[in-house]
């Protein structure tokens, strides 16, 4: 009898406290320094303002597309907000797995009243995509290579120049970016790259150029590999995300420098999965209104060297939270770094990815 009373009382208490306290919100991101920057810039301040919301970090962004599809098929979507790269956002939108949103009503306007759709501008590459940062894929090189005789690479085509800059390179194990760089260094004009790549001959031309460095190349599949290879001296020049190189150079003080030439801009941002109940959608939208405003995006740049996606955030970018150095010169969008940039064509790759990837993998295996 007594035991039953205790159990009943306990259950009642648990239910009461459940109603009063936290509503959980699962936010999926990439983990590591990137999740930490989001935690510092978005999650913590939001939870201070909204003590009844408890944000749970899930580090599954790398498998987000496949997992979302599986969740959707099972009819049980457990994620509230997912951080993905723009090409995945387009894919998820096409598959009907991400919610289309009206950017001007869901997102806050800039402090001067510019509507969100203009503040983000061209970076809204899909109706489902809420841009967050601009990052770039670019090259880093070791500054202490004896064989180079004092030369330092300053041009993207130096990557393909084995005479002046001998040594191993590292490139990503996928065609995107690599075939564009190959064509640029094989005399194709920047504006013609994609129209050339549409043809069989153009693709063969790109692979022929890549052939010239194939046996000197280590192929990576995770962003952390190139920094490690550079630090170990396994490669002398390699491509990766600019934030990884920033950490290698400024935080770990390795003898590495950035090439920046022909860096390829890419975007990362949020999508809301489809199939969420209404009250969860409302909660996520409330979070998004806060976490993507001008100040919050600028705050994130204190913790990681990725450029905020809003035009209005750029002037607010300050110093690194721990190192105390100015972050602006380390942004891929900084005028000094962005002298020669390449724009990644999402629509084009959505069409050609399956085809060129098959050819690229066959080329790699041979």
């Amino acid at each position: 009898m007594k035991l039953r009373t205790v159990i009943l009382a306990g259950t009642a208490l648990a239910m009461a406290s459940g109603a009063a306290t936290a509503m959980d919100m699962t936010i999926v991101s990439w983990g590591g320094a990137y999740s930490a920057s989001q935690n510092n810039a978005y999650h913590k301040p939001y939870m201070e303002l909204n003590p009844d919301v408890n944000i749970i970090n899930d580090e599954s962004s790398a498998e987000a597309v496949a997992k979302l599809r599986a969740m959707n098929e099972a009819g049980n979507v457990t994620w509230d907000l997912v951080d993905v790269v723009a090409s995945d956002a387009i894919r998820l939108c096409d598959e009907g797995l991400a919610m289309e949103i009206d950017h001007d009503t869901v997102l806050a306007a800039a402090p001067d009243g510019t509507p969100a759709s203009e503040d983000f501008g061209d970076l809204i590459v899909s109706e489902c995509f809420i841009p967050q940062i601009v990052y770039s894929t670019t090259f880093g090189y070791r500054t202490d290579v004896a064989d180079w005789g004092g030369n330092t690479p300053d041009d993207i085509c130096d990557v393909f120049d084995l005479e002046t800059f001998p040594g191993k390179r590292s490139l990503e194990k996928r065609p995107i970016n690599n075939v564009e760089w190959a064509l640029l260094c094989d005399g194709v004009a920047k504006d013609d790259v994609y129209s050339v790549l549409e043809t069989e001959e153009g693709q063969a031309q790109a692979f022929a150029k890549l052939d010239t460095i194939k046996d000197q190349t280590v192929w990576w599949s995770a962003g952390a590999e190139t920094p490690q290879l550079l630090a170990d001296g396994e490669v002398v020049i390699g491509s990766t995300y600019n934030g990884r190189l920033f950490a290698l150079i400024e935080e770990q003080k390795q003898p590495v420098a950035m090439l920046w030439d022909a860096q390829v801009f890419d975007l990362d941002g949020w999508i809301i999965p489809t199939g969420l109940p209404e009250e969860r959608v409302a909660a996520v939208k409330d979070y998004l209104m806060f976490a993507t405003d001008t100040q919050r995006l600028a705050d994130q740049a204190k913790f990681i060297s990725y450029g905020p996606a809003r035009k209005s955030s750029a002037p607010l970018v300050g110093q690194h939270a721990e190192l105390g150095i100015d972050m602006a010169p380390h942004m891929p969008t900084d005028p000094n770094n962005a002298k020669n940039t390449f724009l990644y064509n999402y629509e084009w790759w959505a069409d050609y990815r399956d085809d060129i990837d098959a050819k690229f993998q066959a080329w790699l295996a041979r």
Partner: protein
Amino acid sequence: MSDATAGQVLTTQDGKPLKASLARALRREKLRALVLIAPLLLFVVLTFVAPIVDMLFRSVENGIVADTLPKTVVALQTWDPRSGEAPDEQVFAALYDDLAIAVEAKTHTRLGSRLNYEQTGISSLFRKTGRRINRMDEAGPFKDQFLNADKKWGEVETWQVLKQYSPRYTDGYFLSAVDAQRTIDGISLKPENEQIYLFLFGRTLFLSIVITISCLLLGYPIAFLLAHLPLRTSNLLMILVLLPFWTSLLVRTSAWKVLLQQQGVINDFLVWINLISDANRLVMINNQTGTIIAMTHILLPFMILPLYSVMKTISPSYVRAAKSLGATDWTAFWRVYFPQSVPGIGAGAVLVFILAIGYYITPELVGGTSGIFISNRIAFHISSSLNWGLAAALGTMLLVAVLVLFMVYDRIVGIDNVKLG
């Protein structure tokens, strides 16, 4: 035999026929056994058989075209791709009706990305047309309006893909999985610069066999020592075998990176003792060598443990008897001991081979381009390209390959000759 005994039925104490009574008792026994294993059976069916059947089914399932464009599929039946011309107005009218509904439900882009696996460019064709559909004139004529939206609607290839993939079941994924494709003239191999899967299947089999053999060569002496050293020493050795077994797979793989890379520990040591020059450091990682070394290390315990448990049961008196009859050490081992350890070799080899054939994380990390397996492509199609049909077809082929090899093994060695202890 007399009539009396033949007619008399043996009964139990309560007067029932003995046979029926016995059968009932046995049936009850069986039923109870079945009830006892029912939870396990249900668990296996739900978590093992059902997912595999579901996966096998995905490799042929293709309802998406008929579900998204039902009227168009019917209208297309009369169109002949050999005519060399795009279909007529009637088909375009059906397409308009279907697309209007699909765009409302936002399923047209999903169909686009499905068909893009077969023909480059269909993904954007559907996305683009979807945006234009609401602005089209409902009264028609539709053909011109579609051609205005995108000239690809006027190309025979587009319609051919649509027609070819309109049945609810397709062999297309399996054809892709063997580097083939179906064109208007029947089945043919893909162009050489797109062939990859058969080659990868071959490499996966070859590398798995090499890994199994090297595991056996390294594992046999260790298992022998384990089984025959005094208990105290063999326990220590056993811990050395099990310790890496308990360590995370990723940690072990990363450790091999540190050891094997060109600026790594082994190369540094070889340069230091002047065995190789600084300019000619060995390339031992990001190629097949790396995959073989790392995977042999990771799978070694799976070879040693079954070998050990079989060797433990081999009575030392057989070898002693052989020696007392005049056999040399080698003859005693080869003719008496080794044949008794064959069941352990069989179990270890099957275990290692089947684990190796499906590995993907280690080849991905240390295999470079020449050391990757078919499973790396399956993982790519599951998580990156979302082409689950092709992934399922490749997975099915891998499963069938393993089953065939298992049967061959059964024929040659005999499956009852496999022992885990």
